[in-house]
Structures are given as C-alpha cells and as structure tokens.
C-alpha cells in the first residue's frame, strides 16, 4: 500500500475489503468444521467430503482476498482507479459455492424425512 508514504485514501478501503473477504472465508471454515462434526452421525464419509469442500472454499476465499487486494492496490497507485482492477469472477464463484452449500443443507435436513 505504501508508495513513498502516499496512500490512495485514508479510509484504507482495499484493506477493509480484503478483511471482509477473509472473515467470510473464516465463517466458511468454521461452518465446514462444525458441519462435519454435526452431520457425521447421519452422513458418515459424506460429511467429511462436504467438510473438505468447505475448507477448500475457505482457502480459495482467503487466498483470493490477498490476490484481489494486491491487484486493487497496484491499480489504485498506478491509475487512481480500478479500471484494470479485479472483476467479478471470485464474486460469481462464491455465489455458486454458497448455493451448493445451501442445496447440501437442504438434502441433509429433508433427506432423512423422505
């Protein structure tokens, strides 16, 4: 972020955004671990698979946040805007993954009653 002490803005927007991505990733990690623990008696190995997929998504979010923040900062220091900044690929991936988690949750809850 530092460019001879000059900053894009004193509100530290790229850092705040990176932190928002990271806490979303941590929420997914906690959910994956708790979900594996809670679903293991009913789903068995399936619960472990779901948990590992969740941890993979969490890793993607935390690593993705770092890449996005670096790109945004480089771009802000160079151009002063986000013209060549990060796009919506990770945003779309997160939506697809959350929907998949939701479908898995629905199957886990409704499945035993069918």
């Amino acid at each position, binding site marked *: 972020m530092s460019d001879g002490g000059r900053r*894009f*803005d004193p*509100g530290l*927007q*790229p850092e*705040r*955004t990176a932190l*928002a*991505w990271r*806490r*979303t990733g941590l*929420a*997914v990690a906690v*959910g994956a671990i*708790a*979900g594996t623990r*809670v*679903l293991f008696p*009913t789903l068995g190995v399936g619960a472990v698979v779901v948990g590992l997929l969740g941890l993979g998504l969490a890793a993607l979010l935390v690593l993705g946040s770092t890449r996005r923040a670096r790109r*945004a900062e480089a771009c*802000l220091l160079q*151009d*002063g*805007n*986000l*013209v*060549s*900044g*990060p*796009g*919506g*690929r990770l*945003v*779309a991936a*997160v*939506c697809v993954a*959350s*929907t998949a*988690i*939701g*479908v898995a*949750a*629905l199957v*886990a*809850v*409704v499945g035993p*009653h069918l």
Partner: protein
Amino acid sequence: MSSPVTPRRFPRWVFGEGSEPDPRFTLANERTFLAWIRTALALLACGVALEAVAPPMQPQLRLAASVLLIVLGLLTPVQAWFAWSRDERAMRNGRPLSAPALMVPLAVGSAITGVLLLAALLLR
C-alpha cells in the same frame, strides 16, 4: 487516465459499459455483497443446526422452521449476485442504486421462523 472500459473484467455486461466510478464505491459494493453471503451462511447454519441438534420441540414445526431458514439461505446468494452486478452497473452509468429485492421476503421469513419456533416450543 486509461480508457473507461476494460473488456477483460468479468462479467462483460457489467464492466463493458459506462465509466469507472469512485473506487471506494466499487469496494463498498463488494463488501455489501460479502455481508449478504455471510447472512446466507448464517441462515443455512441455523437451519442445519436446528435439525442436527434437535432441541426438544414439536418436530413438524421445527422441521418447517429449519426448511424455511434453508430456503431463505438459498435465495440470499442469488440476490447477492444480482444486487452486486446491478449496483455496479448503476454506478458505472450514473443511475441510482436500487433496494435489495430480498429485503422484505427475508424480514417476513425471519418473522415466520420465529413464530414457528415459538409454537414448536409451546406445543412440544
């Protein structure tokens, strides 16, 4: 200043038109999107936990509350994607932002969940 349009940024129908807004607004839009995603994860976690922990409640009403929470948790990421892309487009074109479409269903759904859980507790 570089050109206002960078077709390399995904998706094209968002970034392919208009001019680059204040970067703070783009980043704030992203954080709002992430807040919706965390809301979705919280709804899903509550829905699963309710059935997995199985607290002593009337089972049908508890299941109904759980399914309602999960359905809301499934709709929220869809809403998050549409709100993020629509707002980014609006900012690029200097149009006003719109309110999230899921706000009222989410409030009503949460209230119904509360009523279901209260009834499930009283009728156990």
